[in-house]
């Protein structure tokens, strides 16, 4: 299998501040990819650049054989590269059903709308019960479910999840982890940023440790790796 996404030499930041210093990752070859590392070192910035929310200053992003560097978020979604941002507040005054229908806004997703809706309902039965409820009245976990649901409505070829379980209670977190694993089993490759190392290791064995806006260590499938090794990377020896 070809690499679905190749990021090479990517430099990006906000205003005069450069956050990413020539970072490069590959995704799609070995299934899921996990990104981890301390906060404030560029994981989210990398994902925002990949999905077109942030224009990179240098470097290239190739997705599905096409150079998408500097393309608008809209055309990147239309290619099937879908991003669930961190702590997405979505559209507070819209109902869950409205959000789902916005998820299918992209022309490529329209024909699959009904099927994807059933898929989301099956994945998150909790949401299916209250399709007409406004997003602002949902709990953090439920909102995260809607976020992932909206992304599935966009019919992703590659799905980016930025800290899907951040700040959630253990019970609802387990539910979400299970849903993410289900999505992955259904054949959608993922790029996941996650602080929960256990969950990350369950999901993938291809990891990037990101530090100071660069890949400090790449852990490829087959590399032996223990939980303690990752802890050591986080906290130093």
């Amino acid at each position, binding site marked *: 299998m070809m690499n679905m996404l190749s990021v090479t030499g990517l430099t990006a930041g906000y205003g005069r501040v450069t956050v990413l210093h020539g970072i490069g990752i590959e995704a799609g070859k070995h299934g899921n990819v996990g990104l981890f590392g301390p906060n404030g070192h560029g994981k989210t910035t990398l994902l925002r650049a990949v*999905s*077109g*929310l942030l224009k990179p200053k240098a470097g290239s992003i190739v997705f599905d054989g096409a150079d998408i560097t500097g393309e*608008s*978020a*809209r055309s990147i*979604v*239309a290619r099937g590269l*879908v*991003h*669930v*941002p961190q702590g*997405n*507040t*979505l*559209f*507070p*005054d*819209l109902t869950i059903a*409205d959000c789902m*229908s*916005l*998820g299918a*806004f*992209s022309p490529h*997703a329209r024909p699959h709308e009904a099927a994807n809706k059933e898929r989301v309902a099956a994945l998150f039965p909790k949401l299916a019960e209250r399709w007409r409820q406004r997003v*602002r009245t949902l709990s953090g976990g439920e909102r995260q479910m809607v976020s992932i649901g*909206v992304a599935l*409505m*966009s019919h992703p070829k590659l799905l980016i999840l930025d800290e899907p379980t951040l700040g959630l209670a253990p019970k609802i977190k387990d539910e979400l982890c299970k849903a993410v694993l289900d999505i992955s089993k259904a054949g959608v490759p993922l790029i996941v940023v996650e602080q929960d190392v256990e969950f990350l290791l369950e999901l993938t064995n291809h990891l990037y440790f990101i530090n100071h806006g660069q890949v400090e260590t790449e852990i490829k499938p087959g590399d032996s790796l223990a939980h303690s090794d990752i802890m050591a990377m986080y906290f130093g020896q």
Partner: protein
Amino acid sequence: MNALADILFGGLFQGSLYAMMAVGLALVWTTIGVFNFSHGVLMMLGAYFAWQLVDWGLTAALAFPIAVLLMAGVGWVLQATVVRPLIGRANLVLVVVITTLAAGSLIENGVLELWGPRSKQIPPLVAGNAMLGGVGVSLHQIAIIVVTPIILLALWLFLNRTRLGLALRAVAQNEDAARLVGLNVTMLYGLAFAIAASLAALAGIFLGGYRFMTPVMGADPLLKALIVVVFGGISSISGPIFAAYLIGFFEAICSYYFGLYWTPALLFAALILTLMIKPEGIFASRSRGLA
């Protein structure tokens, strides 16, 4: 009987006008989150476009829709020049107050230069008069009372029953999330302004059909529209619409029983009282966003 007909007619007529003026202002606020202080000037410009087209020999039935369409273009351009470049700045709301005021002033003086200060009038939507419950009314006013709810209903259906309308409601609430589902944020902002300017033009045509037009005719309607929007609550499109009719009837009742002289004072007293009790407006929830 006479009093009732007077109040009913007056309320419906004023309410329709106010709703038409305010709804564009509310639309821009709910989608882009800015107040367009050139809204009154857009109203005036729409009326002048209509007048010019009629003056060139077009029939009203042709001239009015063309003027409305032209104004959609003006709205789009206005958005692209004095609003879009500022999106993302700190104090966006205040900055846009200044830039739209400035643009409005330029347009106003441009119109004065081009068409002169002499007051003009455009043909009414429907010519003639009628007696209704003992009150003499012009058919133009009746037409406004009938046409306005249809247009407002169409707008409501567009916003609440179509995917594009849904996108327009969403873009204000979370721009990043809107882009991540593939919405064209730039296009939606332009669309919001284009629709608002068209609605303003229509309000201008309504006004110009029964009152004399001058280049400053938009100032008073803008003030009224602001009152309506603040009174109804700036969180939705339906709030200002209800508020417009409420104010229309309030004014009709006041001017019938207390006289025209007292009406503005009483209106502001009611407004102040309302805002003391419910600062977010009478029909509003606490957040911004169309509903």
